[in-house]
């Protein structure tokens, strides 16, 4: 076992444990902390795959944004929720559905031929972040999905502004 495999196994175990703890915690804020741990583990996996840009974006987007979600978790739930949190009675059905979905995914991915074969070495001498940037804005690359996504985000921004805008007096 090489050092890389050791780090991978440790991180994978950490992610799975954190994800399990996250869905079983009754305290929402604790669940959010475990979610952060799981997402941080994913960014370590990205680093192991030599995908530094994705690792940094993972931390920036998820861990940065989760602080806001946690504020909502604190503000929208009762303070004494820890002792007797409400339990959704349909969790049995959810469990069955989730198990079916997971098995389906495992079977589907298992049939995919790329799973069994080893990935080729990544050429680390190239500046992959720069190539990603060029691909996002070049007409041969992904310029249309990129622009559509930015229009969507702009629409969301404008919509949020309109909702939050104070009504003028006399209307």
């Amino acid at each position, binding site marked *: 076992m090489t*050092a890389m495999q050791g780090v991978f196994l440790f991180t994978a175990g950490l992610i799975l444990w954190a994800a399990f703890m996250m869905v079983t915690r009754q305290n929402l804020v604790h669940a959010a902390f475990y979610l952060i741990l799981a997402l941080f583990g994913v960014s370590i996996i990205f680093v192991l795959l030599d995908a530094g840009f994705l690792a*940094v974006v993972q931390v*920036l987007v998820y*861990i940065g944004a989760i602080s806001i979600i946690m504020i909502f978790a604190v503000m929208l739930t009762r303070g004494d929720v820890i002792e007797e949190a409400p339990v959704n009675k349909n969790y049995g059905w959810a469990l069955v559905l989730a198990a079916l979905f997971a098995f389906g995914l495992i079977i589907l991915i298992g049939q995919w031929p790329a799973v069994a074969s080893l990935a080729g070495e990544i050429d680390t001498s190239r500046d992959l972040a720069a190539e990603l940037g060029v691909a996002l804005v070049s007409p041969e690359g992904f310029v249309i999905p990129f622009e559509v996504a930015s229009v969507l985000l702009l629409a969301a921004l404008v919509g949020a502004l309109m909702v939050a805008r104070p009504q003028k007096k006399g209307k």
Partner: protein
Amino acid sequence: MSFWSNPILVANEWLTGLLADLLPEAWATLISTIIGVVVVSSFGLILVIFLIWLERKVAARFQDRIGPNRAGPYGLLQTIADIVKLLTKEDSIPEKADKLTFNLAPIVSMIAVLLIWAVIPFAPGWIGTDLNVGVLYIAAVGSFGILSILMAGWASNNKYALLGAFRAVAQLISYEVPMLLTLLVPVLLARSMGMMTVVETQSTWFIALAPVAGIIFLVSSIAEVGRTPFDLIEAESEIVAGYHTEYTGMKFGLFFAAEFLHAFTVGVLFAILYLGGWRGPGAEQYPILGVVYLMAKSSIGYFIVMWVRSTLPRIRIDHMLDLNWKVLTPVSLALLITTAVLDKLFAETALRVPALLAGNLVVLVLSWALLRMMSRKARRERQVFKKRPEARAVQP
């Protein structure tokens, strides 16, 4: 290469040679990496001891006092005495606190600052890890700082601590926007997100190409550290001490030290992104000079931070948000677009520096004029004459 011109490289070669004889190569690399991490973070932690003394001395001068002058020459040992005091204090944890999160928060807050030092280029070849996305990395690890404040505020189980944490998240996330936008300006000018490349391409310091962006970066970074005038997160007249109300002894000390180190790190980042980092006469031949230059340039930014801290009073929370969303964010967006267009138009020509400088000044003048117009309009709206109720004698 002699030891005194490049001590880190020589020490590293000696150590790797020593380890290579004793251990397999993978382990030798691992151990020398860990030693590197310990050296860089110890440098930061020891720097804090000096910074606290420096800040107290400088703040005292601004207030026409002498400052610490009893322990050691010029009071240099004052911070050591303070640390001993903090260590001997009782370590109290509130009964209803969330123990694990409560104890983890100060550690995370210190880690968040130390992580930035991993991508700081001290001198040619002296960098923890030259990530090709270094600038983005700085923004990313900043979110751990926000997280630590939220952890502290929530785990303390104290109303004031939680209020402080809410304020902190509102402020830090808001000011991340102009900070990120002004971080992008040096990236545009250097054509790279790697910290080393940003320094190497600054044959003209970027402060000359983007002065307004540099100032906005410094202002939003001060807000990001949460120092006066942006210290609403620990406003003692309103919310006791904010998120660290319940912390005692060295746990409070860790928050305190993290804030001081972060303030100096802001100066370092300002020096790297806008003042040319380690660049200076002879820095290429003698890397040790690069460290001296970087520290000297960082002191400029740090001095401005201290200067602002001892001069301005705390601003109101609505003013804080207004300044960010109505002034800094639009101006930095305009600057980003101007820089992108002008830098593309005048790339590789002699006009690059004057054109970018002129573009910055135009944006500055336009936004100033716009602000004056809006403030005059707002004043006119406020001055609509209303008849005041008068006091009259009541007829029986």
